[in-house]
């Protein structure tokens, strides 16, 4: 189960010893895709504007709207102008210099797997390359370009959201360092889509630069991987499927932050404090950030994945034989399901190579500890236990074995002192940061507490993918009515289905996931599985309890939402009012002590739950003139609530409060 992973190299180490300026001005001669002729930004724009694809759509739009083709062409040109990158080496060098300074202040180290870099270098020469980094911070894409510049690799062009454009100067500078900007939503805009997709494909097909984008679409505020977005992945796979290139290499990149810059920002956002608009001044206000210690970053360049081998036997490429390839077509069902499956596979590849720091384990343990203050020795003991479990599950854990465990724990707690207070060697029950003022009102206190809890949860979430399948099995055993294997499987399948908007669970892989969970838990002596039954062993109790508790906040969260929908939701409930209404309901429940997990206040969980209920048909959307109302199927929601809780909720609360 333990996978061989590459070793890391700290790229900041050299920077601390020699001139940043010389580094930024170094000779930069990246290897390029074979047969590449260098291409100016203007040439690229012309290639796009003169492509058959775009011509076709321009004529189509012109016919549909009655506008003159020249006018539509103008529009296309303007869209391209707004979108296109204008990479300039001088700007890149400026960033390289500045980032050196910033990184050295913020981080202890930036560790990169050099073997991954070598593989990438090889891949760039062979076929067009797509870089797919995980997305947890604004830092991500600057960091990526910084690393590639450091290693003398071709700088990528990066798909960035338009919101960056709000930051006037910075936006332009990002553009000059390779970012191109896409509007957040352009659903029905044919012309926009055509310009955009042709722009990306032209860069890719000609191997002009690696194309980089975030499969998750946006920064994950919870540190859980997000359900992959398929739009751009569809675009970059298209040239292969249509035979325009022999193959495309897709490289998943896992960026793990020991401490995320946006930590509490995210938590506030999840609790409903609106997200500050990206603005240059906002970024500079963040200067306070510069005085803090954010630990280290690990960047792991995964194994390049050949799109050709992914598609082998899954997509019949002959389907493109009968229409001219420049006519845009909706992806067929098999292409769609292929791209979807590939997307999940790639997100999982990102997850697998995420480096977990000891703090992730501590956060997981602290979140489960509601009863008493922990003394640090006890916490250390538990962390060591969890470390071993983690390793058995094949996690990519960076636990410094040469340092005494107690030091590992205390230095982790110290780095995250904003989230945990330690007094006299004791860690108080549950996470509690300095933000919790006893003088504030109960609701405010609750929310302040929630900020800390959600921040901690975001660290626990980094390890979720390691435990997810066993944890679903543990919870399934808990809610199943017997230990009968089929029943446990049914419960597992139910939970998996219920939570498939919450976690990365590949569609159609229920059986595989079940088997993987069984395999891990049997291997580690937690379960015994016979033909008929799934039984827990005596020594497996601790693990099962840990795993079940890990899932509990999610189960309870979904259950409370079901309860809300049955008991409180009015006929006038709309998509827009759903989150505030649920939040209000939850706050009441929490304050009255009938609900344990403050974590359920996360709007991410609430949105995911709603998406799941819509998917399952327990809630129906009706589009009205100006708003979308939600219609609740009470019978179904009720039964989901029961299944999630197995026992009536009251009973559970009793358990929790005893």
């Amino acid at each position, binding site marked *: 189960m333990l996978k061989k992973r590459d070793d890391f190299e700290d790229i900041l180490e050299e920077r601390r010893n020699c001139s940043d300026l010389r580094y930024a001005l170094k000779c930069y001669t990246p290897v390029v895709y074979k047969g590449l002729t260098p291409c100016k930004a203007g040439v690229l724009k012309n290639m796009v504007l003169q492509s058959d694809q775009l011509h076709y759509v321009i004529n189509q739009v012109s016919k549909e709207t009655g506008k003159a083709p020249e006018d539509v062409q103008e529009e296309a040109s303007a869209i391209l102008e707004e979108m296109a990158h204008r990479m300039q080496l001088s700007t890149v060098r400026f960033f390289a210099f500045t980032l050196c300074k910033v990184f050295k202040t913020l981080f202890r180290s930036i560790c990169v797997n050099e073997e991954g870099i070598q593989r990438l270098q090889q891949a760039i020469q062979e076929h067009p390359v797509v870089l797919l980094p995980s997305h947890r911070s604004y830092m991500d894409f600057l960091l990526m370009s910084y690393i590639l510049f450091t290693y003398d690799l071709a700088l990528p062009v990066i798909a960035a959201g338009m919101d960056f454009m709000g930051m006037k100067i910075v936006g332009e500078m990002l553009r000059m360092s390779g970012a191109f900007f896409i509007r957040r939503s352009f659903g029905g805009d044919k012309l926009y889509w055509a310009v955009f997709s042709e722009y990306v494909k032209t860069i890719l097909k000609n191997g002009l630069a690696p194309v980089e984008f975030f499969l998750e679409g946006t920064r994950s505020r919870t540190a859980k991987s997000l359900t992959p977005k398929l739009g751009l992945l569809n675009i970059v796979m298209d040239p292969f499927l249509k*035979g*325009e290139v*022999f193959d495309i290499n897709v490289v998943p990149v896992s960026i793990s932050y020991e401490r995320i810059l946006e930590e509490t920002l995210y938590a506030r956002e999840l609790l409903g404090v609106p997200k500050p608009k990206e603005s240059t001044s906002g970024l500079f206000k963040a200067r306070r950030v510069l005085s803090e210690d954010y630990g280290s970053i690990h960047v792991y360049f995964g194994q390049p994945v050949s799109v050709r081998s992914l598609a082998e036997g899954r997509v*019949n*490429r002959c389907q*493109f034989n009968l229409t*001219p*390839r420049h006519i845009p077509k909706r992806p067929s069902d098999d292409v769609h399901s292929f791209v979807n499956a590939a997307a999940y596979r790639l997100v999982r590849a990102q997850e697998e190579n995420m480096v977990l720091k000891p703090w992730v384990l501590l956060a997981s343990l602290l979140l489960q500890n509601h009863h008493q203050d922990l003394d640090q020795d006890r916490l250390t003991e538990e962390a060591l236990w969890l470390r071993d479990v983690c390793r058995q599950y094949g996690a990519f854990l960076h636990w410094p074995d040469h340092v005494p465990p107690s030091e590992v724990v205390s230095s982790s707690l110290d780095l995250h002192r904003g989230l945990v207070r330690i007094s006299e060697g004791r860690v108080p029950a549950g996470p509690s940061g300095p933000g919790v003022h006893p003088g504030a009102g109960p609701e405010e206190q609750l929310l302040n507490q929630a900020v800390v809890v959600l921040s901690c949860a975001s660290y626990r979430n980094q390890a979720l993918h390691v435990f997810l399948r066993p944890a679903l099995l543990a919870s399934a055993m808990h809610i199943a009515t017997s230990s009968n294997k089929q029943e446990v499987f049914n419960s597992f399948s139910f939970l998996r289905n219920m939570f498939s908007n919450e976690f990365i669970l590949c569609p159609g892989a229920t059986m595989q996931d079940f088997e993987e969970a069984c395999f891990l838990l049997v291997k580690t002596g937690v379960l015994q599985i016979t033909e008929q039954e799934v039984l827990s062993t005596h020594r497996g109790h601790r693990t099962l309890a840990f795993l079940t508790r890990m899932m509990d906040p999610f189960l309870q969260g979904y259950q409370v939402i079901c309860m809300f929908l049955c008991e409180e939701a009015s006929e006038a409930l709309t998509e827009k009012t759903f989150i505030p209404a649920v939040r209000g309901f939850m706050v009441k429940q929490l304050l009255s002590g009938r609900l344990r997990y403050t974590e359920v206040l996360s709007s991410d969980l609430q949105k995911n739950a709603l998406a799941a209920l819509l998917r399952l048909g327990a809630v129906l959307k009706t589009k009205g003139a100006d708003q979308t109302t939600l219609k609740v199927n009470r019978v179904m929601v009720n039964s989901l609530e029961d299944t999630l809780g197995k026992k009536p909720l009251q009973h559970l609360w009793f358990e929790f409060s005893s």
Partner: protein
Amino acid sequence: SAFTSGVSLESSPNTMEHIKCPILQEIMKWNGWGYVDSKFQFNKKGQAEFTGKRYRLSGMVMPALKEWFESTFGASLQHKTPAIPNSSAVQPPILNEAFVEDLKSTGIPFSQDAEDRVFRAHGHCLHEIFALREGKVGRVPDMVVWPSNHNDVVKIVELACKHNVCLIPYGGGTSVSSALECPPEETRTIVSVDTSQMNRILWIDEKNLTAHVEAGIVGQELERLLNESGYCTGHEPDSMEFSSLGGWVATRASGMKKNIYGNIEDLVVHIRMVTPQGVIEKSCQGPRMSTGPDIHHFILGSEGTLGVVTEVTMKIRPMPEYQKYGSVVFPNFEQGVACLREVLTLITNVFAGHALKPQKFYITKFKGFDPNRLCVATLLFEGDRERVLQHEKQVYDIAAKFGGLAAGEDNGQRGYMLTFVIAYLRDLGMDYYVIGESFETSVPWDRVLDICRNVKERIIRECKERGVQFPPLSTCRVTQTYDAGACVYFYFAFNYRGLSDPVHVYEQVEHAARDEILANGGSLSHHHGVGKLRKEWMRETVSRVGMGMLKSVKDYVDPGNIFGNRNLL
């Protein structure tokens, strides 16, 4: 003859007189391409030469060939893999005695001689020739019969039906689709119907410019005879020295001058075929008919599964007044393809043919062009002198727009000549651990470059994955152009030292290459046909319903599967 007298032949001692009708068989290799006297070889000085007197290249020494051969394949003259001089174990014939008796009474010549049977048991696929060179022979026909006219064929087919004997029509034996391979599971007597004696021009109609010809005639003979009367068909497939008119019809052949004269389906006016249900033909020679689906198209491409084509009326034309070769060098393949496309849209009639080949070994250097990327187009113009010259200029002007430079008549003529000797090169390679083959497809214009790139790359990739120790030769050329697309040839060869089953590796790679062709919008075949080699892709190529249509024709025409070569379906 390749068979020494020491080989024991299994025919019974009291066989009927051994009739030696075949002419070509006497002068052709039994385990390689072409004439016995013509081949590439390395002389004592290690220089390549081409033997014999038949070709312009014959008797010439080519010092550059050795270097090209060694550097392209990593081959060495020290490592030889000579062919085994004879074949030992030919299975004794399975004879349907009643059929043999009845056949004897017709007086049509036939033979059970092992040499005759082996000669007609194969085409020229790599695996077929490779096996022969190793002296391996599988299922072969049990008898060979030589009808001398249409009526003989009628009699043979009647007897075959009466006695349930399997017939396999045989023309020039140049198939590259395993079409001539005897199905190993066939238990009936297999009779090879060799049409080579049906080789006369029956009449020429100068008013309508048609000729009525027996289908066994070989291409070069047909042209020679017509030329005597001042005519030509203009149908010149690369195999025209050996392939027959009947074979062209049965495989939907294409010739290099098709831009002027058309492909075989454009050239035939009337076809006569003998089937188990009787003779199929049209009642008149109208130049075009609207009488339901054209029954010629059941025959064209039927690959010997429905009957024997016996006589064909073909269009003929006066021999061209003037002929001129030419060639153009392009800086790269992309420019060359773009140019051909343009030429085609502007010029018709005079531009007889061309071939566009990257990295050819007869032009390796050209001023200012990257030798690794340059590409050569060979051209042939035919017609009245004035128009030829006029169009020649037009073509070179267009070529110039695409960076092409005229490279002279000689290079053009050499290019055409090479078309005929290139097949001999494979035999040379096979003497030195190098095996290879060419295969073709047709593809819409917009996909030509993509398919070339991807298939070449796929071949290289597959070779690597299957343990081929040396980088393979993987190249291509555009040999035919149409309004809507082009015919593309792929050449693939590699040095197989270190491989235990090189032919299997070869076949796997070719299979993968064909998958790649289909995935890139290429056809299953432009003119080689399906045979048994490409059967597995037929269904996806013509659809389930299409298959059903073809099957129902077969079921009606030949319910007893007398024409049991099992090609196509």
